[in-house]
Structure formats: C-alpha cells, structure tokens
C-alpha cells in the first residue's frame, strides 16, 4: 500500500534528460573549524546536473546562475544538500564526554557558478558539541559517519569524493552507489 501511495504522489514528474556530458562527479571539501566550532566547506557539481536534480515535480524553478539569496531554488538547494550530505558524530550534550549522536544541518551560505559548467556551493554547519579526541583514542565517539550521495538518484554513474580536513589530518574518500556512507576517524 505504501508503495502505491508513493507512486501516486509523484505522478507528473518529467522525464529527466541531460546533455551527454558523461561527467557525473561531485566533489566536497569540508574542514572542521575549531575556532567557530563549525563544519565549513564547498561542494562542486556540474550545474546542469544539479538543476535537474532540483526540479520539483517536473517544473524548473529557475537557473542557479541567475538566482539570488531569495530565489526559491536556493532554498530547494539547501534542502537537497542536507538530504544528500550529512555527518553524524559523537557529541557531548551536558558533559565533556561522549553522550549522544548529533547530525549536521548545513546552511547554504552562497553559490558561485563557473562559466565552465560547474558550480561551487558554500556551506557550513554548527557542530559545537563535537566530541574531539583529546589523546590517542579511537572509538565510536571519534568517528565521523559521512553520507554523501548527491545526484546518485539521478545518474547511475555518479561518483562523489569528499576531502575532510581536521587539524593536520586530510583524507579523501570516494562515494559511489552502494557505498554512500563512509567512516572517518578523527585523529588527535
């Protein structure tokens, strides 16, 4: 029954067509800013692909290149990014030890479309309670669980890469359909 409802809800979506560019690749660069206690970073997409993924129920809501902060497509983009990029991490709610699991909620701070067909999206997410490793320890609380499956639903060949920068640590991980989640241990 649930499946039937799902299908009815989305009747009317358009056929998705795209330029035969074959560049199904998105890239994220995320750094943890200890001063601001935020994850801050940049996501890079093929503009055309991202716009198609944002089409709600078949109607284009505008071009990112022509949008400003108040354009509906920006809100749509922020929502989409939060659906497809999130980090869950050990956090300390009322003590300085790990006692909960928190999840990022990214704010879209801005975008910068390039004339070569790519777009940079600038995002940040407060993570004040992130439980940071103080000494040589490696356990659940010091591992970031990262999901990055943007555009996977649109293109079967989509592949994403994410580079996490934390202190002197810099790691680049690959995300492909079937491998949407990755774990990144934070090193003290």
């Amino acid at each position, binding site marked *: 029954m649930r499946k039937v409802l799902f299908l009815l809800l989305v009747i009317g979506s358009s056929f998705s*067509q795209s330029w035969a*560019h074959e*560049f199904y*690749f998105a890239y994220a*660069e995320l750094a943890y800013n200890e001063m601001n206690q935020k994850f801050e970073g940049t996501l890079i997409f093929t503009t055309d692909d991202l716009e198609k993924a944002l089409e709600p129920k078949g109607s284009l809501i505008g071009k990112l290149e*022509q949008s400003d902060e108040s354009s509906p497509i920006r809100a749509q983009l922020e929502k989409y990014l939060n659906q497809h990029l999130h980090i869950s991490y050990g956090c300390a709610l009322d003590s300085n030890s790990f006692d909960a699991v928190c999840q990022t909620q990214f704010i879209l701070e801005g975008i910068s479309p390039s004339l070569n067909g790519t777009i*940079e999206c600038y995002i940040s997410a407060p993570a004040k309670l992130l439980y940071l490793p103080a000494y040589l320890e490696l356990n659940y609380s010091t591992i970031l669980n990262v999901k990055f499956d943007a555009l996977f639903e649109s293109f079967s060949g989509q592949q994403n890469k994410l580079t996490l920068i934390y202190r002197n640590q810099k790691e680049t991980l690959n995300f492909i359909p079937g491998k949407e989640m990755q774990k990144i241990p934070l090193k003290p």
Partner: protein
Amino acid sequence: MKKLLIAIFTLSSSTLLAQTKFAQLDQLLPTANSYRAASGAPGHAYYQQKADYKMTLVLDDAKQRLDGVETITYTNNSPDPLAYLWLQLDQNIYDQNADSKVIEIEKMENFKSVADLRKRDFYYDGGFKIERITNMSGQPMKYYINKTMMRIDLVKPLLPGQSISFQIKWWYNINDRMQVGGRSGYEYFETDQNYLYTIAQFFPRMCVYNDVTGWQNKQFLGRGEFTLPFGDYEVSITVPADHVVAATGECQNYASVLTAEQRKRYELAKKSDSPVIIVTQAEAEAAEKDKASKTKTWVYKATNVRDFAFASSRKFIWDAQKQTVGNKDILCMSYYPKEGNPLWERYSTKLVAHTIKTYSKYTINYPYPVAISVHSKWIGMEYPMICFNGGRPEADGTYTEGEKYGMWGVIIHEVGHNFFPMIINSDERQWTWMDEGLNTFVQYLTEQEWERDYPSRRGPAYMIADYMRGDVSGISPIMTNSESIQQFGNNAYGKPATALNILRETIMGRELFDYAFKTYCERWAFKHPTPADFFRTMEDASAVDLDWFWRGWFYSTDHVDIAVTDVKWFQLNTQNPELEKAFLQSKDTQKDVHIGVTRNQTAIGQTVNERDPQIDDFYGKRNIYAVDALDLKTYESFVAKTSAEDLAFLNAGKELYELTFENLGGLVMPLIIEATFADGSKKLTRIPAEIWRIEELKVSKVFVFDQPVVSFRLDPFLETADTDLDNNTWPRSLQPTRYQLYKQEQTRENPMQRQQRLEQMQRGN
C-alpha cells in the same frame, strides 16, 4: 646460509620495486610487426579494408520512418581469405530485448516517479527490419543476426585483393530522441507541429577487419562507440519538398532542390569570410506553416569517409562561410531551427571555421570539402563532416552565459571529432580515450585561441586533481575498455586531455610535443591507430622516454602528491680564521638569551671573578674569537694546498640547501621548485621525473644559491596535477580552502547584484 638467502631475496625484491615505475612498457604493448612498426608508424605490410556504399533513402515524415536500399562493395585488402562478413546493426540497440537495457544496473531509488518507470519501459517498435539481402544477381544471401551484429555467410571465401558487392533492403522506425534518448533520432516541435531529424547509425555498416582485432564485432552496448572502415559514398535522400537537408559530403544537385535566390546566396557564401544566410528564418517559418506534401531528392557524394549521417527538417535556417586551410577553401555551414537563435546565427559557423583552422594547425590539414554543425537539443554527436550540437536559448531568446559557453564548447568538441576519430580513425568500441581524450586536448587548445582565458573545463593540470586524489576505488585506469570505464567523462575525456597537456607544457615542451603529436596524426590519418602506435610515435619523434608517463597516467590510478618534507641549510666553511671566527662571534651574539641572564645583568652588581682578578685563569681570560698566528699559519697552509678556483668558490658566500621530497601519491612527476630570496627575487629549477628512477618514494636534492632562501615552493605554476598543495611549501603554508576564499571575497557584490544596483541608480532610486 639462511642470511645469504634472505639477502638475495631482499636484493631482487628491491630491484623489482625500483623498476616498477620506470620499467619499459615492452610487456604491456603488442610486439611490433610488419603491419605496425616499433617506431609507431604503419608497417610496410599495413593494410586496411575498404567499404563503398550506394544508398537510396526515403524519409517518411508522416510515420517518422526511414527506408533504405544500400549496395555495399567490400574490398578485402588483408592477406586473409574471409569466409564471412560482419556488419553493424546499431539501430538494434532500440530492440525491446537489447542487451544495453538488460545490463543496466538499477535500484528502486533511480525511479523517482511514474514517469521514470514509464520511460524505462517506453516501447516503440525500434530496430532494423531487414527485408532482404541479395547478391548483385538478386540471389538471397545467407545471414545471421546476433543482436547488434549481422554475419553474412559467403558462398566462397573472399580472397585477398578481391571485392564483393551485395544489396540490403531495410527500414526502421526513427526514435523520438526526446523520449528514448540516443545519438540520433527526431525532435518534435509541438508549437508548429514539425519534426527535426538528425539521422545516424541508420544503415547496416561494415565492421572493421584488421591485424589487431580480426573482425571488430564487439556488441554495441551504447557506450563504446563505432569502429568503421573508410570508403566512398553515393547517397540519394528523398524528403518532403520543403525540407532542407544537411549531410556528409557534397550535394550534387542543389540546382534541383534550392531556389535560384538560395543558390545565389550559396555561391556568395562559398567566397565569404563571414557567415551568409542561405535559407532565411522567414523562409523556414513559411515552410513550417505550409508543410509541403510533395517530395524532393537530395543527392550526396563523399569520398574516403568512415560513415555517413544527415539531418533534415523544414525548420532549418542555413548559413555558411568559407575557411581556407592550406590551399583549400572549406565550406563551413550551420543548420538550425529558429529556436536556436540568437545563439546559432551569431556563433555556430564561426566556431566551425575556427575549429577546423586550429585543429589543422596541430594535426593535419582538414581534408574534406565541408564542415557542418546542426543544432540538436541536448546532445553533442559527431560524424564525418557533420555533427549534431546542443545549446538552445530559452523560449524568449535569452540565455545564460553558461549556456553560451556550453554551446561553444560542444560545437568545438564535435567539429573537432572530424580529426579524432573520423580521420585518425581509432577503435572507439575498444578505446574511448583515443578519440575523446585526444579530441578534448585539442579542444582545449582551440578554446584558448577563441577567447583569451576561455573557461575551459578540461585541460589545465590542476582541474583533474579532485578526480584523481585520495580513495581510488571508483577510478579505472585510462587503458580500460570503453564499456567498463568508471567515471567515463573524467577517465576518457578529462584525464587523457590533462595528461597530454602536461606532456606539452611540462615534460616535453611545446616544440617537441607539437612535432610528435603532429607526426602521430600524419602517420595515422585515414588509418586505424592503436594505443601502442600513439605511445611509440610520441617517443619515436621526440627522443623522450615516456614509458614511465604512459605507465603512471594511462595504466595506473595513482595520483600526484609530492611533498617537500625536509629542508636543511648549509654554508661552506672558508677555513679563513678571520672570517670564520668573526662569523662565530656574530652567531653567538645573536643567540637567544634566557631571561634570567638578562635580569642578572642588572640584578647582580658584580660577580666574584669581576671583583677578584685572581679568579680567572687561562680559560677565563682567553678570547675565543681572537685570531692568532697559529690560526693564520694553518690557513696559509690550507691556501697553499687548495686551487684558486676552489678558494674562490669557498669564499663566494654560497648558500646550500638539501631538500627532501616524498612521493605520497604514487605518480612520479618532474620536480619544479621555486626558491624565493630575501630581496624578493625568485629562481626556478626544473628536475625531470627521472630523479625518481631508482628511489621512487623519497629523494633529496642539493641546491646552491648566492643568497639565503626565504621560502621554497613546489609546482608553483600548478602544472603537475598535484592533489595536495599544502605540503608543497617550506616553511609550511596552508593553501586557503575554496570556502575560505569565498569568505574572503564575500564582501564583494556579485555581478547580478551590481547590475541591480546600476539599474536602481539609472532609475534614480
């Protein structure tokens, strides 16, 4: 005995390790032979088959159906008797049971809507309908269709040097490109109820038979494109009388298909250096409304081409201009519906002309009489002399700057395909990079000559870094079969184009590279090259051993991450006591002083030995910085034993630095080191990649300068695709992230905000 064995084992292991990245490619490349020489040139026994076609085609605009009768004359230039012939039936990819659909990996999440599901199972009666295959006496020939391939069995083998002619009658329903996709098909314009046809892979085509693959009859699964022999074509195309046709080759009967006025414009265009409209928008719009019921036949001839494609529509506007290449005038043309304007009228033909001119400089002179760009929404696809290109403005005629650059890029790219693979005819079914990669590389050069600082998406080394860095589990080597490539675009277009750009700018230099690349193009124009022919020619024509480069960039998924991990500073000891003791004294006075010592200078009025002269003995009284006669005698003796040149060098005040470099990414590359001195001047040192030939993971190098260095930077011009620039500097300086750069620039208003502010100002607000 045990120790001896271990020693031998260790020795051979390390020897193997040392050989890994610089080992020659001998084991990977096919052995050179009489068909393909070790130099990379065609061998003395090189051969290739020939397939000539005569076709009569009828386009049914009411049913969107194409009917054809083709006569193929196939000439066996190989030394082998052929018992059967293989032909390609590419339209069968639209058969309901085609492998291309079945092998697609699917998940429920790929289907967001009923429309997606409908699209997946969209049915139309596609695929070739073969009505008959006969010899020239009309006798049926035996054939067998295996999906997208068809074998025709010969009564007796076709011997070397012999030709055979046979006829095939076929038809198929043309695919709605907007519904089912595809490289060709039709687009329906609902507003005026007309069709625009871009027709390709539309007839049974001979497969290639050669010394490398035998028959190249790998199934067409949709991604690995086409491998075709050269031949001559005579094609007559019957279409509605008000259609305008664009096709591979030269039209033989403009007199019977164009008006007198259009023929006059056509003659004018042949002599013009800028586009001349042959069929105007007004004429096209009139045809859109009238919809002729009669037909006309357009006749084309094309010589020495590997394929034939055409476009037909009553919606076509048509413009043309000449472009001189060598001593030949090429007619550059564009065909587009009004929906392509204003972009198409303004740019398309000029881009065609610029592309063939620029490619001719880097490869071979464009050999065909015409070059055509046809507007076809969404796609970019190439055929000999003609290509179908996207880039459509909004319905109101406006377009974004990104759309404009997208259109420019796709036209340059698809017109460029005339050279790779239409003329330098590699095996697309096997190696996508051989045409897409080489073409994308020359596309970059062409874009940069179209507009200074053109925002090319691929070419410069730094642009491939995001794709190559880190976890390589989703990356294939470039040398991967077309159907099995992960990340098709980055792998087969971006990475090889970058690799060639690095060869040109950094490894070989422009002069050596351009000569070798042109040599490859000249050697293999109108022939079937393989990767080995390319690799070998680039070395053969340049005297640069590039095996390490092919191995790293084309056969591996390693990436470039070279780090400056240590810097040691040395100065030479002149042995001159007057200089060295003064230097020592100066160093000692510059030493950091503990705070207690400083405070004691005033807090302790007088120490015991300052009060009592009896306390200080020889040691307490001596001046360690004083130069005595013994020092001078020793120096005189040193001077007597040392040559004047050595003394001059010792006294020149040289600064010596030992830098350690670590190869973290695996891909060896040249070391390009920029030293910055106190006075702001810089010195660049380039060390070839061979510095890694024995130690592949860690090397050191000593640099001698005339003044102290303030900082070192590796790869300062971003030419090696280094994926981590943070470890390229000494002293360490982290590069700002993209986010940090954004925040730094955030106070600046974007161009759109500025425009709004300008408009407000002009309105007097």
